[in-house]
């Protein structure tokens, strides 16, 4: 049910772009207004989400660690797993963001012949790593539409990605990897019963939307043929804020950017915000230095105190009268 709903949503989005461009000829709407709106919503929404996270206090130093903490000088500290200073945290964060180390520790619990067995399960780590890196490389390659002249780095990336020289236009390796990884991530959710049980529309929809984006991009490149030069004229006009429309670009391109725009709008409202959230996770971004520095809970209210000397000042006369000992005469 939830799967079908998500699939239907993606199909409706694609059809919207098709009807809008192919039948109603709303090229300005789909080529200029919607992409501009989408990027504004994406950036604005992203900032709002992060600021809201920033407003919630972190009461305790709750960093997660899984290595030897700093101790006596002859005990070797694990500086990545158990950092005590900012540099250690930065290093741990960089490795987390680029290699998904905590996902690598994923384990699987199984019952084999009446015994409970724990094993490591790295397929999820592998699938998501392949997906994220392919997507990053594809996005970087897409910069050729937004920069003129195209920098050498992008050119190099592109020729590396297409070095197999299969077909014309040359097949990109990342295109294959992206689709394979997304398919795996989707099948994982529908085939494994206990994962299917906890999956929501919010889990299926982004995967299917990304598959839709990849499919429309790939169809445009390898099957229908998109007039790339005209696309670049459009994208360059968009990024220099002098938008122009074009009539020679095929509808498949408009489907592609409409799905991308949908993703951009959906991003800040969804679990995809983990891209920003990872940096704000207290379990990841705090150093384990609670035995070195005092962690002050930002909630703590001012405790009213009445020091003994103040007390004595207040009652000195009365105390003297009844003969109580005074610290200050």
């Amino acid at each position, binding site marked *: 049910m939830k799967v079908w709903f998500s699939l239907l949503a993606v199909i409706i989005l694609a059809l919207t772009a098709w009807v809008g461009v192919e039948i109603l000829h709303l090229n300005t709407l789909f080529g200029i207004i919607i992409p501009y709106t989408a990027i504004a919503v994406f950036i604005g929404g992203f900032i709002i989400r992060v600021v809201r996270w920033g407003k919630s206090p972190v009461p305790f130093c709750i960093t997660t660690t899984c290595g030897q903490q700093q101790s006596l000088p002859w005990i070797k500290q694990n500086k990545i797993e158990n950092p005590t200073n900012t540099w250690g945290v930065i290093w741990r964060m960089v490795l987390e963001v680029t290699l998904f180390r905590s996902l690598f520790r994923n384990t699987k619990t199984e019952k084999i012949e009446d015994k409970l067995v724990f094993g490591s399960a790295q397929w999820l780590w592998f699938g998501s790593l392949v997906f994220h890196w392919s997507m990053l490389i594809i996005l970087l390659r897409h910069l050729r539409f937004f920069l*003129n*002249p195209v920098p050498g780095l992008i050119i190099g990336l592109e020729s590396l990605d297409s070095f197999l020289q299969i077909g014309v236009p040359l097949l990109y390796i990342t295109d294959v990897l992206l689709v394979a990884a997304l398919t795996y991530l989707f099948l994982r959710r529908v085939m494994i019963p206990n994962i299917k049980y906890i999956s929501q529309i919010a889990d299926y929809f982004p995967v299917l939307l990304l598959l839709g984006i990849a499919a429309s991009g790939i169809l445009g490149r390898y099957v229908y043929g998109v007039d790339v030069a005209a696309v670049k004229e459009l994208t360059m006009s968009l990024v220099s804020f002098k938008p122009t429309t074009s009539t020679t670009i095929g509808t498949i391109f408009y489907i592609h950017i409409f799905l991308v725009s949908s993703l951009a709008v959906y991003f800040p409202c969804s679990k995809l915000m983990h891209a920003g959230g990872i940096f704000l996770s207290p379990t990841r971004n705090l150093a384990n230095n609670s035995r070195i520095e005092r962690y002050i809970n930002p909630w703590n209210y001012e405790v009213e105190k009445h020091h003994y000397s103040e007390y004595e000042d207040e009652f000195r006369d009365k105390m003297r009268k009844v003969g109580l000992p005074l610290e200050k005469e």
Partner: protein
Amino acid sequence: MYNSRKIIIGLVIFVLVAAFPFFINVGKTAQPLQLSLNTPTINQLEKKECIESADYMRANHMRMLNEWRDQVVREGNTVYTSSSGQKYEMSLENNCFQCHSNKSNFCDSCHTYSQVDPYCWDCHNGTKGAGLKQ
């Protein structure tokens, strides 16, 4: 907001990265793509037309050339019948470059603009009538 300094630095980096193409290009005028059709053969044509419609050629010439290559080298067919019934030789040097003899102002300028680098020119000469590179 707690830790506002760090969060604001992070957000500034995010905006710079996410809107990077805008920052780089703002204020610049997007150079329109310029293609020259000014070659002796094209100037002599009565109807200035490519072998298929210009829109079709822009989007599909790579697939067409790939198909031709297979047809010629593997199947031995050398004649292409266009949608208007005209017959052409399936060839780079004896077809495209007969008319588009200004490769660097036509094919190359568009390819540089769109960042495509056909590896065909490793072997093919890209000039009118000439054969393969030695």
